């Protein structure tokens, strides 16, 4: 179940630099910790986060096991055209989440 909080402006002036912030619920299990029975807890992290603006990729990061649970991502983009910003998280155990927000550029 996707549980995401996104903070981005709904409208922007053309050429304006806007900040997009996204927070997602995820354990980010490192794969290095032993469980209560001594065996290693399998790694379960988000491997990649990408953002696209009307289908064009504008931002991408690879996440590592050292990143804390519930990763918070913040990045800047230049508002060019009205449209949809899609945020995608993908990772271990088939983790796939996509959330879209609409931004109007005036």
């Amino acid at each position: 179940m996707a549980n995401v909080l996104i903070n981005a402006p709904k409208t922007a002036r053309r050429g304006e630099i806007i900040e997009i912030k996204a927070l997602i619920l995820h354990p980010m299990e490192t794969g290095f910790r032993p469980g209560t029975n001594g065996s290693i807890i399998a790694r379960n992290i988000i491997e990649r986060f990408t953002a696209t603006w009307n289908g064009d990729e504008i931002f991408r990061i690879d996440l590592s096991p050292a990143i804390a649970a519930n990763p918070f991502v913040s990045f800047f983009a230049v508002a060019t055209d009205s449209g949809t910003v899609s945020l995608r998280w993908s990772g271990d155990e088939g983790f796939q989440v996509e959330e879209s927000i609409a931004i109007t550029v005036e």
Partner: protein
Amino acid sequence: MMRLRIGLCLASVFVASLALAQGGIDKRRSGYQDMGPSLQKMQDDGTANPGMLFVQLGAQAWATPAGAANKACVDCHGASGATMKGVALRYPAIPEGADTPADLEARINLCRTANQKAAPLPPESRELLSLSAYVAHQSRGQPIAPPDDPRLAPFRERGAALWAARQGQLNLSCAACHDDNAGKKLAGVTIPEAHPTGYPVYRLEWQTLGSLKRRLRNCLVGIRAESYAYDSPEYVMLELFLMERARGMAFEAPAVRP
């Protein structure tokens, strides 16, 4: 002479009002005030506070039917959760028909077993924390208001005694740090006054939401004392004492703490 008398009169009024104002100043500090500005912003921003993820989960759980009765919280308490406004401010309290106090988590589980006919949620489980975060969030910004129930007094007194009792290998009491040395440093960290203003709290050290009970266990481990079992009444007594101690302070749940 007349002018002097008016002057004296004004001066005494000023002194009296200053004394009143100073008497009225609340010197208690929430852990919020001891955090850096970036963490304060994190707590205040509803889209940067990770506790809000659990509030969102709690809102989903609030609307999901459970148990043999197949009832959801919304069926009795309404969809908005606004009926829960102020509830977290007055717990622990004695539920109807009971004679011992229960904290918010125990009260939620009581509702589950009695009304939903469902199994109680395990302590510190994601669903229980989410529901208590959802309920507690409704009271955000309001002053903590423990009930004036005389039946609570003996439990609160026992909580106060626990607070003052030295225990563990380090032979420390809660009061030794949080009353006598609050505001000073312990290994570079400011010792807070331990007001339960924001529980359940998102602790960066835990990387998840945790209850006041978990926080109390944390301190018990820290002083190398044996922590009480999760269902033992000692926690509720301490919570009762702490909520009374923080009476009137603004409620911040879900708070962020380092």
